[in-house]
């Protein structure tokens, strides 16, 4: 393929194919971490933002973007990281939230409830992704990856991950 004939839409469709290595059901588009795609003849720049500061998946995502787009014929592919404005779970697509739930991870609540300093605040009401009950409780506000908290359903008793709001 020749880079000059490639439009942004094609780039995005290629990016849509790349999944988050830690939550493989989500594409990086679903996650909302692609900020911009800039093209200048045969040079391409993809601007991304990390979800969490120490997210170990970022290096792998950068490498995968380069490999995935290499087939499009660009001479130079640059992936730039920007931090500000900081990523928020509000940028996650509705499609992404639906996929998360299907996968067994409770999607982030639409309104941020826990990102304040109040101590011993009642745990956020999170819907169980398995049986849809709201009778759930938080086991730990840190989970298997930086972006998740651990919950358990009081009705079906299943433990589950909650993609915490950020």
């Amino acid at each position: 393929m020749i880079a000059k004939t490639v439009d942004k839409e094609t780039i995005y469709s290629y990016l849509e194919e790349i999944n988050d290595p830690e939550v493989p059901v989500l594409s990086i588009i679903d996650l909302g971490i692609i900020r911009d795609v800039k093209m200048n003849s045969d040079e391409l720049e993809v601007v991304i933002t990390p979800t969490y500061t120490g997210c170990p998946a970022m290096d792998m995502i950068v490498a995968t973007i380069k490999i995935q787009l290499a087939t499009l014929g660009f001479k130079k592919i640059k992936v730039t990281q920007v931090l500000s404005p900081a990523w928020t779970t509000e940028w996650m697509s509705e499609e992404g939230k639906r996929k998360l739930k299907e996968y067994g991870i409770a999607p982030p609540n639409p309104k941020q409830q826990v990102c304040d300093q109040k101590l011993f605040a009642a745990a956020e009401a999170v819907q169980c992704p398995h049986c849809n009950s709201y009778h759930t409780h938080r086991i730990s506000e840190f989970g298997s990856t930086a972006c998740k908290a651990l919950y358990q359903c009081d009705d079906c008793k299943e433990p589950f991950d909650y993609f915490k709001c950020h």
Partner: protein
Amino acid sequence: MSPFIDYTLHLGDNSLILGQKNAEWCGHGPVLEQDIAITNISLDLIGQARNFYQYAATLIGDGTTEDSLAYLRKEREFKNLLLVEQPNGDWGQTILRQFFFSQYQYLLFQQLQNSSDKHIAAIAEKSLKEVTYHLRWSSEWVIRLGDGTDESHQRMQKAIDELWRYTGEMFEAASYETHVDLSTIKEQWINKVKKVFDEATLQMPVKIFMQTGGKEGKHTEHLGYILTELQYMQRAYPGCEW
């Protein structure tokens, strides 16, 4: 090296060393959930350090990288606070160290997110989201342990005796530290700590002599051991990759 680069390294060093200390708990936490919590915090801190080091490396130029800053500097070149290099001790001491530091970082980053330097402001803005979690988690644990059993209360009080002398340094400006108003941070920090201690039924310490020097590279004996472990691979096998 310019004062601003020194300051950026100081911020990175604080995060790296505390991240390294917390990581020692991996697999040793008192319960699984808290083991995961402390190591998650570790990951956030090391992520902060990477951001600061990457920025410092571009300012320094000359082929310096985030890795050479972390793995190839000597003890006297590290500018971290004495507080973050103190031993983990028991769970209470680790919690208290985290609480003191997170409360400080929370106030500091609030100021730094308005920094005239766009890079520092962006790192502070991004990190604040995570620091808020660290602060809430560690505050709750200080209260839980302080207001817990006789044993846990006693241990927390002992941890305060152990660590308080390293808190004064946070508010003593180093020669390169001209970007923040430390006296405001000090006042807010004392008030917040007092509030948590009151709720935890812990005594606020009396005025004591404060240890300083870390910011200028004069450390306690503990940092050498930390770096020995942290830098082992690059020292034993220079340039080693995996």
